[in-house]
């Protein structure tokens, strides 16, 4: 089933890899470069899932999650955080904020797709 997925990451290469993987699996992808940009993309359109990086300029992933949880239209949207091994404390903060699903970078495309099937 095709889903619309918001991908938030400041790294163009990660956005590209994630975007390619998701599109190849038949999903629609909306891209954003940081948390602030991502919030502007949450403009009423239907988003099934958010995939977000943690460390980003302007607005980081944790703050972004907190903002999303305040939006009545999007507060129930599943969020998958992409993170590196060293960010254990961030992970706890993220869980606290409401992002319960995490994927460690680097990951294989099939791991991402498998994680998505668990969420939406």
């Amino acid at each position, binding site marked *: 089933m095709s889903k619309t997925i918001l991908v938030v990451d400041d790294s163009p290469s990660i956005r590209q890899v994630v975007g390619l993987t998701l599109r190849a699996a038949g999903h629609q992808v909306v891209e954003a470069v940081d948390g602030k940009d991502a919030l502007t993309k949450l403009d009423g359109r239907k988003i099934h899932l958010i995939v977000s990086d943690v460390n980003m300029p302007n607005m980081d992933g944790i703050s972004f999650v907190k903002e999303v949880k305040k939006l009545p239209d999007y507060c129930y949207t599943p969020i998958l955080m992409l993170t590196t091994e060293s960010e254990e404390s961030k992970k706890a903060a993220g869980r606290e904020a*409401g*992002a319960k*699903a995490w994927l460690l970078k680097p990951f294989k495309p099939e791991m991402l797709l498998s*994680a998505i099937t*668990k969420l*939406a």
Partner: protein
Amino acid sequence: MIDPVQIFKEEAAEHLHVLETALLELEEHPNDQAQISAAFRAMHTIKGAGGMVGYDHLSYFTHHLETFFDRVRDGRLALTSEKINLVLEARDHIATLLEDPEPSAELMVISETLLRHFRQSESGTAASSAPSQSAPSVAETADEQSCLYRIQIKPHRNAFKDGFDTLPVIRELRSLGPCHVSGYLSPDLLDESFEADTCYLAFTVLLSSQCERAALDDVFMFVQDDWDIQISTIGNDEACRVGDLLVKDGAISPEVLESIIQTQARTGELAQQQGLVDKEQVDRALAEQNYIRQQQKSKQPEEQSIRVPQRKLDSLMDQVGELVILQARVDQLALDLEHEQLASMAEELERLVTNLREITFDIRMLPIGSTFGRFRRLVRDLAQELGKEVELETQGEDTELDKVVLDKLVDPLVHILRNSLDHGIETPQKRIEQGKTGKGLLSLKASHYQGQILIEISDDGAGLDKDRIRSKAIEKGLIREDAQLDNQEIYALIFEPGFSTAAKISDVSGRGVGMDVVRSSIESLQGRVQLESEKGKGTRIRILLPMTLSIIEGLMVAVSNEKYVLPLNLVEECIETSASEISTKNGSRLIKHRNQMVPCLRLRECFSVTGVQPSLEQTVVVRSGDTQLGITVDEVIGNFQTVVRNLGRLYQDTPGVLGATILGDGGIAMILDVGQLAGANDSNKVQTT
């Protein structure tokens, strides 16, 4: 009464086949405990049953073979290829001994010689590699069976707020195996007032799956920290009582259950009566119970099967065939009488007959794997004999074919394999000189292709020498010296009678009867055979066969008052043609079909049907192999499913006719052989009888 000796012979033949397969497997994987057990069981059964029906000597011989193999099974004796050869020899000897309960003196001498060999090989080498690394035990192999899991999922009350849905989890569980999911309101949260974004759901999932526990945990990767997940396994023999299930679901406590059981009645009903649980909960537990029992039952070792003589199957098929015809007549009658009630009954009857026909048809279908299995031994022995190294690769073993077709297919396939081994695959030395691997690859593939069965036999051997085939064909007078032939036509020459390219006649193949026998036997099965080859690279033979010979999906057409049936799987399209649209060129008529010129024949002329030719005709475009052919008829009537009847002996060889069928009104329609019609049209010698 059936002769017990006959039954034993059949049974023993089957066990010998199992034994052989196991041994050949063991040759590749000498430590495969499952195969060793299979081989041992086969010997054991032959010994036991043989003694029962008077095969004393055979029983004696097999007993000693079994003793020898018992040591292999214990790991006291390592299974070398030399020993496998010996056991294979013994296996063949048993097959010989099967012919007569009281064997000749010579055979008994051979038995003794073989047994002596066994004793020698036993004392010669004790197990070289003591099985210290613990050979896989039978218990471990049993683990591969699917396991019944009981998974209790209680999502966290904030699951929705956290962005989780319960559906993906259940969907993923379902992808692991057959599931029974029951959802209910979580007993812990029942007393709370309702809030829209709180998750009150809980689930019990019964899953039958071969997956490992880790795969299950993986499903709950994101939610395991927050949700209450309990996974337990249900043993295959574990009793499942409604009461226990109610306790597990948390509907009642064990103490309450105990007190109910004291009263000795149906637990579920009682618990409900006493207001301890509601009906819904009991129903759920009952549904779970049902599922568990069903899964446990389905895991009973292997499907039961019975042996039925071929004759009975054939007569069943005949009867079903008659029924199909009768049903068509009822249909016709209902149509003629315009009787509504009869028509609806005819429709119902048609549905039943179709089901019955499919089931009967299915019974006759056998996987081709058993036939492939037989070839492994053949290829191995032949390769050894010829001093070649060959690996036989098989694919599509579970492709099913009508037993009759399968039986008749064995000989031609053996012939082709022999040819490949003898002329195709080179000796290891020669192969290495040519930069190939020393071991040749012979591959046997079966698959479905355009509603037919495709069998491909390919090798990576020497391939065919086109020039040599050509000169040989000229020499034999098969073609004229100036004949213009394309590759396909040249290769087709080797299927001509009296053509054999082998320079010298060897034991294995090339004894005058050549590939023409292969072609004629395939054609007698309504099949086609094709060959492709590249010199030095290998050869590929493709055989296309219908799945069955007895029932055909046909397209009925009419010419004047005559009706004909075309095999539907070969029909590509029906088009309307007026007489003028068909252009004539060099005596053969062509029609333009999808920008291609397709040769075309008029059925009326083929069979000299009298009557007036309508100005607007129908042309059915059919495909035979790679060629298309238009068959012009007066009228296309429609799909028609029918039983093929063979023609009487007098008419059996009529070209272009495959058989006949009885129509609903009692009339007869000829079933056309499109391949032959196409061939006849090609060579412009359409019979006008």
